[in-house]
């Protein structure tokens, strides 16, 4: 038991260098080419104005001083003010973070619903043509850029068939309605359920389907491959043969006996998948005009608003590091082979 606590503590402390390194890398990348004011307003303002603003913001001091000041601000939770719209970066994070979280959860649901059953099926019918089709499907999921998948889904299901709206998180009417909810969480589905208004709920859900599928299929392909590979291993083990000889049916054998141990690797890759989802969210949100952290990040990057970018990246770094920590803990808890 003592070993476990030590392991938890070490893994927890590892969050700090991870976040620190990423924040530093991004700071260096962004600042090596110049200061945020010149990047944003260079060519738009007079040279004297530019210098005055740079001086006022303290960007003419040595970079190392600015770096430590920036780290100090991060520790106290002060992410600064965006240059483009003068919003507090903390407000941006809270406001748009909810939208990205909602999208990521939908995508994970799609990934689980599609990836795991199909992976089990592929392992069961291994090396037959059905298996080949499923594997090609898994590779196609990976090979199709999310934004292309998104554009094609739009082309077929919203422009062609008119089943779903083309973009956005909800109709303007719904957005106004949800804004009136007391203590709105910003997660539209939750807010819509709290209003109890069916038209809101269905509107929010119909907007979510295409982005969720586009982003979810990316991860579904990874899950399918992993479940297939691991199920093939577990299906060949002695205890599965033993269960079969006891008369356990093939279906139960696949879905219960062989499946459980095959799930462990899934949990360990979820950490990496969260990072992939966040990267994919930037593309999905841009494709579907889903106003989340990802599309905002792309926007701020295009406008060279380095203060906002650094803030968003710092938050993402924390999310990634914490997810990996939680995943390691779960893996240690369910898999006795994990050494600590």
């Amino acid at each position, binding site marked *: 038991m003592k070993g476990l606590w030590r392991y938890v503590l070490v893994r927890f402390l590892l969050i700090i260098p991870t976040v620190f390194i990423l924040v530093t890398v991004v700071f260096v990348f962004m600042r090596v*080419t110049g200061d945020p004011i010149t990047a944003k307003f260079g060519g738009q303002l007079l040279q004297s104005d530019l210098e005055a603003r740079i001086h006022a913001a303290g960007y003419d001091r040595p970079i190392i001083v600015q770096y430590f000041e920036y780290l100090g601000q991060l520790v106290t939770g002060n992410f600064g003010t965006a240059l483009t719209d003068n919003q507090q970066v903390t407000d941006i994070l809270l406001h748009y973070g909810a939208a990205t979280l909602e999208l990521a959860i939908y995508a994970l649901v799609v990934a689980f619903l599609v990836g795991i059953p199909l992976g089990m099926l592929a392992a069961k019918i291994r090396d037959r043509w059905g298996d080949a089709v499923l594997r090609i499907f898994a590779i196609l999921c990976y*090979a199709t850029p999310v934004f292309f998948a998104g554009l*094609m889904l739009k082309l077929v299901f919203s422009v062609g068939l008119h089943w779903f709206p083309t973009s956005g998180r909800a109709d303007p009417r719904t957005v106004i309605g949800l804004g009136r909810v007391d203590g709105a969480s910003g997660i539209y589905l939750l807010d819509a359920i709290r209003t109890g208004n069916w038209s809101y709920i269905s509107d929010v859900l119909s907007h979510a389907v295409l982005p969720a599928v586009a982003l979810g299929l990316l991860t579904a392909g990874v899950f399918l491959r992993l479940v297939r590979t691991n199920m093939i291993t577990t299906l060949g083990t002695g205890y599965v043969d033993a269960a079969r000889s006891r008369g356990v049916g093939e279906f139960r054998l696949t879905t219960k006996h062989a499946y459980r141990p095959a799930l462990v690797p899934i949990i360990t890759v979820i950490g990496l998948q969260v990072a*992939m989802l966040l990267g994919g969210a930037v*593309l999905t949100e841009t494709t579907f005009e889903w106003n989340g952290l990802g599309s905002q990040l792309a926007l701020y990057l295009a406008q060279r608003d380095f203060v906002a970018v650094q803030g968003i*990246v710092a938050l993402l770094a924390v999310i990634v590091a914490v997810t990996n920590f939680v995943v390691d803990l779960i893996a240690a808890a369910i898999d006795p082979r994990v050494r600590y």
Partner: protein
Amino acid sequence: MAIRKGWLGRLPVIGQLRQSVGLQRGMLVTGLVLTGLVLLTAILAPVVAPYGYAQLAADGVNFGAQKPPSAAHWLGTTVGGYDVLSRLIWGAQTALLVIVVAVLMSIVAGVLLGLVSGYLGGWLDRVLVVIADAIYAFPSLLLAIVAAIMISGGQSGLWSGVFAAGIAITVIFIPQYFRVIRAEVVRLKGDAFIESAKVVGASSARIMFVHALRNSTRTLPLIFTLNAAEAVLTLAALGFLGFGIEPTAAAEWGYDLNRSRSDVTSGIWWTSVFPGVAIVLVVLGLTLIGESLNDLADPRLRTRRRPGPKQPAETSVTEVIQ
């Protein structure tokens, strides 16, 4: 299975091609054919493409924007008035250049760091591992964007664009090569042949670059193909978000897809479908090769030549992808 081990059989892909059977061989061959076609297109682009990638008019007549497929423009024209087919073909060249630049740079840097870190160990090793892990865990696309902005800063030439994209992709690949090579070197370090090299008096550099390097490159062809696929995806994503190569400098599929976003909502399909399918085919081809190599390297997943007794499942072979 009786395979004669000629020199041909020792080449990375050909050996596996001989070893494979059935569906696995089908997948490998499909991948090789697709990749070969793309390579050919890239090399022959100046001959095959009907127009230049940034050409707006022929014989003094403008192509016109968003024209549907016709005899003059088999795949139509884009919103910017370019010929879709020509940009499709030239795009293969851009993709190939970026793959070569990105993968070469990251292999050199990653292998070097991995060798030194794994062999020498100590605090340098620990620091590098933590940094590599941090970068590896982070959304790679975001790092690539940040790197692209830092490097390009609004440059637009073909080579500067290719290098900006290439370096941006390199930043995210180095940790992968680093991890694999380092793990191999750490495993090899205790082996008898390294010990005996030490005893004979070989220098650290010689042991690293001759003995350890040769024996730790086993998995490189696999990572190479998977990374080439990822490089194409990253390049396209950079282009789609507007941080890629300018349209006048080179044809790039991601940029074309970005410009086709508004076309999609008005039902204009030819500007988005073709560049997208091109990306999918390239990545599919490379991934099929990579997947097949992975399966063939793993005795649990290799399809047996003849149905025989059940395979032992206890073999612990590490998954290389993921």
